[in-house]
């Protein structure tokens, strides 16, 4: 029922200059790495990117930075990336920092048709500047507005031809809410399975949120390998 691509270049063909894209992942975990590589190769420019982080210098969204394809970044932590720092200092890149929980909730709101909500995060901080502060039950809260995207890119462990997705462990992170918040959502899946193979009780992203899928193999680079020595 959904469009199944076989070439990553074809899958990202619909991303135009000046598009807003959302990209799943936390650090390098759960990122749609082949879709990002394909965008790096596509030459799409002046992108607004919504993602918790911006990759590292030579991987993930860092590749789009390197190519100067990003005009604006909305995220919560961008400290893993020297080129990011350079572009911000040079005024080449606009940044909007949002507390991580507010970012996740703004994306959820975008997919859920909630235009805005109140949250305690950021009250009394620089984040509150220009934002409405309102009291409920004696506590102050900040108004945060929803985020949506022209195209959302997610990565899942499994997907089927109806667009249903299942994520693996902490690779889930921002992916389910990002899948719901895109006008068009493209899913990079580790494994495309037969329809009916996924238990309906265990599906994390129902197919209604996904417009197309592509199967691919990921490198899954590890940012901070932490090992326990055998006793």
């Amino acid at each position, binding site marked *: 029922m959904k469009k199944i691509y076989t070439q990553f270049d074809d899958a990202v063909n619909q991303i135009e200059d000046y598009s807003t894209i959302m990209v799943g992942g936390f650090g390098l975990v759960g990122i749609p790495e082949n879709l990002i590589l394909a965008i790096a190769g596509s030459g799409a420019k002046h992108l607004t990117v919504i993602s918790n982080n911006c990759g590292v210098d030579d991987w993930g969204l860092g590749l789009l930075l390197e190519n100067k394809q990003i005009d604006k970044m909305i995220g919560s932590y961008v400290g893993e990336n020297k080129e990011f720092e350079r572009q911000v200092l040079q005024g080449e890149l606009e940044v909007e920092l949002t507390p991580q929980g507010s970012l996740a909730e703004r994306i959820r709101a975008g997919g859920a048709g909630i235009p805005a909500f109140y949250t*305690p995060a950021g009250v009394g901080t620089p984040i509150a500047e220009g934002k409405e502060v309102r009291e409920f039950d004696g506590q102050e809260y900040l108004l945060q507005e929803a985020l949506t995207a022209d195209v959302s890119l997610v990565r899942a462990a499994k997907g089927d031809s109806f667009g249903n997705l299942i994520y693996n462990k902490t690779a889930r992170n921002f992916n389910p809410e990002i899948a719901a918040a895109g006008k068009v959502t493209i899913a990079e899946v580790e494994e495309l399975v037969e329809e009916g193979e996924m238990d309906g009780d265990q599906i994390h992203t129902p197919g209604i949120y996904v417009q197309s899928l592509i199967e691919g193999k990921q490198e899954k680079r590890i940012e901070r390998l932490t090992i326990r020595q055998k006793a």
Partner: protein
Amino acid sequence: MSVQQDKALQREKIAKRAEREIESGFYVNLGIGMPTMVANHIQEDKKMVLQSENGLLGIGRSPHEGEVDPDLINAGKETVTASISASYCSSAESFAMIRGEHLDLAILGGMEVAENGDLANWMIPGKVIKGMGGAMDIVHGAKKIVIIMNHVSKHGTPKILKECTLPLTGRGVVDRIVTDRAVIDVTDKGLVLTEVAEGFTVEEIKESTGAPLIISESLLEKSY
């Protein structure tokens, strides 16, 4: 002892004392950096669950070499394992859990704490801003917020102040401060000194603190 070793010992000492904040049955979020070290000191008989805000409830120990799963990391982006009862959720759900105050305790690092409980721990003006990550959510998201940090800066100036000089992470959010020198509670009446670490006197704590201290009637000296 080298300065490096000295610093490491100081961090261990703070982490050990912070561990006492954790009670059996608690759900706890440990911030990135020094707070992560607290996990190494948790007593075996305490049954508690560590939450990682990227979407893991039930952090286990670090993986052995052959056990590494690249899809399984903590909020510090380090590879971890999951405990037997662990569950995964999306980041939105994870922060719903945090914001809804379902956690009993969060132990976080700090740059400055003010006597009214204001916390600054995310940016230094003039330096490149890396982002607040989950800090601004977590400070509103646990029944008790404990800040662990050195009592004074590397220049020897107080980090506990009448008012924070750095941009805030949260206003009036801190419940307790644990440093290498003392344990101080934030109360409606002001800062209350409840414990003094071995090697320090009440006078020394007062002098190295940038806000008035009320001395607790049940003050513990040489407490850790």
